């Protein structure tokens, strides 16, 4: 398939999604909106997992930190300015990722997975145990941020259709942004690090800085998704930072095939669809879900689009340390 067909298919997919609000069914508008938020979240993780080779099992932390930032920074009885809370929440998530990155990027492989998990768990307890964010019950975002600039309000996030398109446009921007980043010298280095970090070091790259950059960027974009989530639902809870959420977003990445931005968006759709369908079929839907996950790993190595992974394994004789 050439680049043109791929481009056309993407446009068609985009057009279909863009038509969702025409249904007029607010449940589906919100559901697809949520899937798009998760797709942004999954793309941010894909920057780490699929392109840099860093399997973070604590990515929900940045999602949750930004979601809490929106709720905490918004005044109780009026709307905060979008142009203040949006950059602030992304910035806080990125800052958290930067600081945590300084620790976790000292480790590799299995260590990295466990340590990212442990730090996310620490962030979880901070929100769960302190009055900062309403404790275990979470907290409301009573008023969605306002887009007003000097009295002019280009769109209204309380309107579900505006909210939907705001998310969709953000998704497109993030997609294009990441695609561009991956073309940049920085992005090429990340891909090199995924392929063979040691070689990159012997070529003179200070890979730690690049990984820290990627980790911070991914944290910030994960935060963007968290911002959208909090704005969409108006409710944040410590569970947003739990390891189950980190696991779910990893699932989306692998379902779609890591290292493939469009695929990861599809992975988010596939994952949410699977949950919906299974939960409608049976009370024991987690059994089906678990079964599907195990089957995907066993029979579809590297996800559905795992070809690069296979080449890599072939070249490295199966060592993945």
């Amino acid at each position: 398939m050439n680049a043109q067909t791929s481009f056309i298919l993407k446009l068609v997919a985009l057009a279909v999604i863009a038509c969702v609000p025409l249904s007029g069914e607010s449940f589906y508008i919100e559901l697809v909106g949520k899937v798009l938020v998760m797709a942004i979240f999954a793309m941010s993780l894909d920057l780490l997992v699929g392109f840099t080779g860093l399997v973070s099992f604590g990515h929900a932390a940045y999602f949750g930190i930004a979601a809490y930032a929106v709720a905490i920074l918004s005044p109780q009885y009026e709307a905060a300015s979008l142009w203040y809370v949006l950059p602030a929440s992304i910035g806080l998530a990125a800052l958290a990722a930067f600081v945590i990155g300084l620790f976790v990027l000292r480790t590799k492989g299995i260590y990295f997975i466990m340590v990212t998990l442990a730090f996310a768990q620490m962030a979880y307890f901070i929100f769960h145990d302190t009055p900062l964010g309403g404790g275990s019950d979470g907290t409301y975002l009573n008023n969605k941020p306002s887009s007003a600039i000097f009295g002019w309000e280009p769109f209204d996030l309380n309107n579900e259709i505006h909210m939907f398109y705001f998310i969709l446009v953000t998704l497109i921007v993030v997609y294009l942004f990441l695609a561009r980043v991956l073309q940049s010298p920085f992005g090429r280095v990340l891909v090199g690090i995924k392929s063979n970090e040691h070689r990159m070091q012997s070529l003179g790259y200070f890979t730690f800085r690049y990984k820290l950059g990627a980790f911070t960027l991914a944290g910030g974009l994960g935060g963007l998704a968290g911002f959208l989530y909090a704005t969409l639902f108006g409710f944040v809870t410590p569970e947003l930072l739990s390891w189950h959420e980190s696991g779910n977003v990893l699932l989306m990445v692998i379902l779609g095939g890591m290292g493939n931005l469009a695929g990861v968006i599809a992975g988010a759709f596939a994952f949410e669809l699977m949950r919906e369908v299974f939960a409608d079929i049976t009370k024991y839907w987690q059994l089906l879900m678990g079964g599907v996950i195990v089957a995907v790993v066993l029979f579809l190595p590297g996800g559905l689009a795992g070809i690069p992974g296979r080449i890599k394994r072939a070249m490295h004789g199966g060592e993945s340390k």
Partner: protein
Amino acid sequence: MDFASFLIQTLNSLQYGLLLFLVASGLTLVFGIMGIINLAHGSFYMIGAYLAFVLTSATGSLMLAIALGIPLALVFGAFLEWALFAHLYKRDHLEQVLLTYGLILIFEQLRSLLVGDDVHGVAIPAFLDASIQLTEVMSYPVYRLAISVVCIVLAVALYFVIQRTRLGMMIRAGNDDRSMVESLGININMVYRIVFALGVAMAALAGMLASPISSVFPNMGSQVLIISFVIVVIGGIGSVWGALVAALIVGFADTFGKVLVPELSGIVVYVVMAVVLLWRPEGILKKG
């Protein structure tokens, strides 16, 4: 804190740490030797506790339940290795994470189908159901002491197996260099199967031992899993002695954290982990 309380808290720390060691040591062996990250390890703890409940109900004795449960856990571990984990050695960590994550869902749901969602208790064996008077109001349950003793015995046995037996030689060699083991003509697949089954059995045993004092309840595995991860990170992957030291550190940090800095008790162990990462990113006792 007066001196008597301090001593008792020390005892509490030791007992908690030793029980954690039992879970974490299996995890660290599987990590270190097979290179596999296993999120389902906490589920083995849960399965052990439920085995203890089911078997104790059936046989009327926890001792008998443990005697039956250990072989069952070994067989179960060997089966899992054969059916699933053997396919994971050459895979990315990411896929290992996912498969074992899927397993957690399956195990929890099967538990719900088979045993239900209720909380259950397991009776302490009669001959251990006593307490030792420590202060005028406080006494210490003999069963907790017994758990500590069993854990110490197992730690010593593990030391013996790893240092003195042929299996242990293979384990140590496998920990250092897989290809070397293969070049020695050792059947590495068999070593893996044994190690994995042992890991499952130790986690299950920890669950069985803990069941009378922790009771048996849904999702009991996930708390243990994450704290075990922290222990493995602190101790160093593949190091059983690291796991022992780290488990004791976590036991002390958690126990004294609760008393001395109650507001922060949820994050104390993670702070300890962060400090260790700064000091020694590979854990305090890498390999051993």
